[in-house]
């Protein structure tokens, strides 16, 4: 399981509100909460009172013959109806603001797959598992999924939207605080069986977490300019991080054990037998091709299920991955 930031709870019911929308949702929440409490008391106080007062003291008590009152039926039909109409509009308001992103919002594409999130910025920068956004600027997320339905949920932002394969859905937010927040998947998407030994690798629905890092505008620009990568760390180390964050480890083991895909242990220089009968020697070109066009050379005995990473990984990231894979002796 990825380490996820704690959800900040600052009231009995709700997490701390850290987006512009959260305030609106919370107002609606409070209105419906107090309405419910009032109605609950309205129902339960008489119930409790009647249950005590009208206990049977002796057999054969004569009970009231009043069996209806049109007036009172009309009253308790129309008053709740009026309250409900109001509640509908109370609920509608924050929702409309949640659904219509301001023009000029920073547009980020979100791709969900079992069991990780990746975020693609307009300049092509791709960040896996970590959504970096500027504070105080509207950010519009366009979601899709490559396998099953997932759902993007940030409790402190009060936003949620399913990521559906074959469909684009969207939502937007504007963060109001500089901090790290947890993204949760709320649409059930299964579990790997068995789980990878390494517990840091997401293994199922409840591990499909990501982090939203809200930075101030300057820091965000800096981050984006470097493509989200820290060039000072050695490539192999960056590759290791990429290997984990892109979910490669879900299918490729590092210890030689068999999984959905071939193991990465002793990969470099190995002779692989392909599905078409030919063999290939694993070198940089083969690795690059397999990452970008997995369908090109399918290793015998493994299903062709790997998605392409073309357009998601930058060349420098592919290089980093290759550097990491070369070290897996």
């Amino acid at each position, binding site marked *: 399981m990825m380490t996820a930031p704690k959800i900040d709870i600052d009231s009995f019911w709700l997490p701390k509100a850290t987006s512009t929308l959260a305030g609106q949702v919370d107002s609606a929440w409070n209105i419906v909460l107090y309405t419910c409490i009032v109605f609950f008391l309205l129902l339960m106080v008489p119930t409790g009172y009647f249950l005590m007062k009208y206990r049977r003291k002796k057999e054969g008590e004569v009970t009231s013959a009043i069996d209806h009152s049109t007036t009172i039926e009309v009253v308790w039909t129309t008053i709740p109806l009026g309250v409900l109409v109001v509640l509908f509009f109370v609920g509608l308001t924050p929702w409309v603001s949640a659904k*219509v*992103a301001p023009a000029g*919002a920073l547009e980020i594409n979100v791709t969900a797959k079992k069991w990780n999130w990746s975020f*693609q910025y307009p300049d092509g920068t791709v960040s896996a598992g970590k959504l970096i956004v500027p504070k105080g600027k*509207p950010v519009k997320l366009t979601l899709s999924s490559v396998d099953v339905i997932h759902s993007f949920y940030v409790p402190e932002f009060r936003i949620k939207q399913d990521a559906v394969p074959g*469909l684009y859905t969207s939502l937007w937010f504007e963060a109001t605080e500089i901090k790290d927040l947890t993204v949760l998947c709320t649409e059930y998407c299964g579990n790997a069986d068995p789980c990878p030994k390494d517990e840091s690798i997401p293994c199922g629905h409840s591990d499909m977490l990501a982090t939203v890092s809200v930075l101030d505008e300057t820091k965000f620009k800096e981050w984006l*300019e470097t493509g989200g990568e820290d060039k000072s760390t050695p490539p192999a180390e960056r590759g290791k991080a990429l290997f984990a964050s892109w979910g490669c480890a879900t299918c490729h083991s590092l210890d030689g054990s068999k999984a959905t895909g071939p193991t990465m242990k002793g990969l470099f220089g190995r002779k692989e037998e392909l599905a078409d009968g030919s063999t290939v020697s694993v070198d940089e070109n083969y690795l690059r091709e397999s990452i970008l066009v997995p369908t090109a050379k399918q290793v015998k005995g493994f299903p062709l299920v790997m998605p392409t990473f073309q357009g998601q990984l930058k060349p420098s990231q592919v290089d980093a991955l290759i550097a990491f894979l070369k070290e897996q002796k």
Partner: protein
Amino acid sequence: MSSHDHGHAIGGDHVPHVLPYAAYFATWGALMFFTIITVGASYVNFGPANLLIAVVIATLKATIVAAIFMHLWFDHRMHSMILGSAGLFLAIFIAFTMFDTESRGHLESITGERPADMSNPFLGGSARQKAMNALYPVGSNSVKLSAPGIVPGVFDVPAAPSASAAPEASATVSPEASASASASASVAASGSTSASVSGSVSAAPSASAPPKH
């Protein structure tokens, strides 16, 4: 046991309500007639009305079958109500479902090409993406993201071309319009919803619409 009592709604059910042969053959004739009509109509292209014509004729035929062959016309009104309720709830089902599917943005209308590349939904397909890729070649290390407005629309520069308003296409309507409603598939619908409800949102939010917030 009378067979002369057709023509009025039946009362006692243990008296079978027997129609004359002529009624059956006339019904059959009418059905064949409408079959010929509907087949004939299929050779003429009425455009969008094709479906409507077919459904209307089919409904006529179905009504005839139900009324005569299935005896509904002479039967308890209850049975007509039962059949009617089936139609009503079917209509509710189809109407509400299509209410969603017709007002929802669908991948096809966005990408303009099918089948969509499911393994990488954001690659290649969308016009917006193509425009974006043209501006910033994917993965190109040579792109230095230093110019202001490089994340169009976010940091000031209202006039800067937004990601979706690609150089080549600010004028063309179809791929671009869909691309800017884009990616938010369904936002177009919400635009009209909210417009009707709150009147505060433009009906077709696009990249060039004034910011609301």
